[in-house]
């Protein structure tokens, strides 16, 4: 049998009878060769020089066969945190945080959200009025000293109501979004990752939930609830909202799962949770963030719709949604009643979308 085999003595004497999982204490790690040990050509001894700055990419054909972005960063100086051996090791999250702190979009949106949280918690910081202190004689009046936003149809101060409305609206928006993103994101990711029966079951379940009309579902489900707190409303939104996120999350996990780096981790013996958390999740989260932040506005508006239908929050509660819907009949003679709460809603939604965008970009090292 012409089975010619070469026994390779090799310069590494230990490799001879190494057993799996066991390394003699004196075993030399592969990286520890004295620099003079092998021909090293003229590898740059310091930072990037002309040679390692000159980079072009691979990828055949196409007019953008330039792959210029590849060369870019190698040309740049590593910067103050250049990560020489003395620098601390960095990770995606620490890099993302460093990036965010310098991003004006993030700073503006974060400040806005902080401000909203503040007035949601302590509305009395901004106004001394009472949102329920109304005087029908002032109904639909415009702005006047002490009442910059004017009065609504019931003669309540629009400014005070807008400030007080933040609590309900922001709570509903944020909690519903978080709930939907967590539930949908996790279920979708698990379905996408494990596939098979899990996936089939979940997909059919999402189909069922997709088939429930929001308004009708709200009328049926919320009509049995007697409590006038925001939680049933939030619960209802999570119940109907998660399938949307779960589909997106499932899709992007399936895409990420097929990449070779996940296979590479598996070949190394990585566990399921490790592959999911470290390799798949960071690469699959972007679309979830985008859709969830856009949905936030929808939830605030949905709360208004439900309230208008009489199944959401009942009138003594103050919320932007309630004010917007109660102002809509008067849009022609008293537009300010609609504009102020609607403006507050728009700014809130914008702030969260900007935040989501900034976070998504920060988590993408290619955009740095």
């Amino acid at each position: 049998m012409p089975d010619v085999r070469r026994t390779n003595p090799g310069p590494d004497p230990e490799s001879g009878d190494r057993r799996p999982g066991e390394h003699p204490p004196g075993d030399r790690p592969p990286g520890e060769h004295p620099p003079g040990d092998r021909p090293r050509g003229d590898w740059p001894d310091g930072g990037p020089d002309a040679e390692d700055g000159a980079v072009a990419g691979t990828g055949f054909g196409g007019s953008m066969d330039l792959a210029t972005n590849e060369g870019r960063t190698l040309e740049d100086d590593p910067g103050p945190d250049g990560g020489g051996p003395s620098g601390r090791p960095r990770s995606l999250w620490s890099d993302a945080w460093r990036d965010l702190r310098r991003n004006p979009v993030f700073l503006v949106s974060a400040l806005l959200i902080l401000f909203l949280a503040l007035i949601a918690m302590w509305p009395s910081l901004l106004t001394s009025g009472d949102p329920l202190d109304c005087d029908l004689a002032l109904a639909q009046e415009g702005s006047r000293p002490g009442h910059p936003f004017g009065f609504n149809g019931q003669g309540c101060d629009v400014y005070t109501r807008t400030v007080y409305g933040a609590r309900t609206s922001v709570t509903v928006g944020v909690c519903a979004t978080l709930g939907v993103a967590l539930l949908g994101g996790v279920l979708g990711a698990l379905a996408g990752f494990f596939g098979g029966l899990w996936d089939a079951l979940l997909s059919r379940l999402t189909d069922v939930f997709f088939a429930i009309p929001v308004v009708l579902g709200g009328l049926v489900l919320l009509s049995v609830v007697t409590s006038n707190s925001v939680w049933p409303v939030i619960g209802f939104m999570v119940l109907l909202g998660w399938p949307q996120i779960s589909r997106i999350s499932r899709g992007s996990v399936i895409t990420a799962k097929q990449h070779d780096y996940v296979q590479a981790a598996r070949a190394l013996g990585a566990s399921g949770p490790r592959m999911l958390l470290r390799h798949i999740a960071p690469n699959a989260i972007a679309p979830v963030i985008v859709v969830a932040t856009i949905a936030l506005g929808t939830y605030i508006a949905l709360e208004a719709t439900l309230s208008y239908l009489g199944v959401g929050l009942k009138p003594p509660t103050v919320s932007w949604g309630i004010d917007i819907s109660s102002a809509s009949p008067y849009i022609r003679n008293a537009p300010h009643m609609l504009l102020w709460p609607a403006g507050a809603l728009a700014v809130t939604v914008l702030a969260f979308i900007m935040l989501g965008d900034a976070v998504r970009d920060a988590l993408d090292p290619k955009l740095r």
Partner: protein
Amino acid sequence: MATMAPVPGTDTTTEPLLEVEGLVKHYPLTQGILFRKQTGAVKAVDGVDFVLGRGETLGIVGESGCGKSTVARMLVNLERPTAGAIRYKGEDVTRLSGRALKAVRRNIQMVFQDPYTSLNPRMTVGDIVGEPFDIHPEAAPRGDRRRRVQGLLEVVGLNPEHLNRYPHQFSGGQRQRIGIARGLALRPEIIVADEPVSALDVSVQAQVVNLLERLQDEFGLAYVFIAHDLSVVRHISDRVGVMYLGRIVETGTDAQIYGHPTHPYTQALLSAVPVPDPAARDRRERIILTGDVPSPADIPSGCRFRTRCWKARQRCVDEVPLLAVPEAFRGEGGPAAHPSACHFAEEKRVVPADAAEARP
């Protein structure tokens, strides 16, 4: 089926590092929504045997769809074989699970084809190369990891200072080096390389091939080198197996396969490779095969190459040729006497001979 286990007396000094026997991977084809009924199978790998010695390079060549990548994935346990055994130092890896499997995995590592998708774009190079230590914490003490990772980067010819960079900041060749560093981290004995240079530019390809050869000498690695580029495989391999439709059809040393091929498929494959020498343009005889590779879900009876073979006769339809030294060459012991799965094996020189022999 002929195995390639060492014949007593030829090589008794070392036991083979890796022994693959009757390796089969069938992917079932199913029909029906509720009750899945198997209607057939894609026979991606259909009975592959080979051995790999210490520090040796086995090249596996074949066209796309011949099952060579599936073999690679089974070797590193990314796929479970349908049948057959993969013995690492005598122990059947396919039966292992849990801790024992993890221990074996340390010793068989893989280098992937595509340097653009095989590195997680959201991890730093330090995290990518250091990940093996996270998964196998016993391989390196915590405090030592960073130094080890830097050492690995240096070994593969990258700047160890670039620890905190992300993969997209490197070119294709450099990324492939990162992938190689990750494969080396656990000091494996076997590296399975699936088309490691085919996505790279010519000038960079040579750098990576040289690196792989240097690492082999330095660390006594054994390679299973899988590629479709016959020239690269010849350059790096000690022995070569030619795969067609899920089976090895011919195997031998590089000189035997390239200089003295006896299987018609090997001959056609070799003759089709363009040689960078315009003077050879008219001298060379090209065997142009007709048709395409049959579907692995519907493999021809008898010899699987017969549908494209110019020598096919009735015997090829009826009888599966075994991978063994063909009878005609059995007595000689010359370079043509190597296993070839053909009923009508004949030696035919298809690679220009002058260079093969003239140069040392």
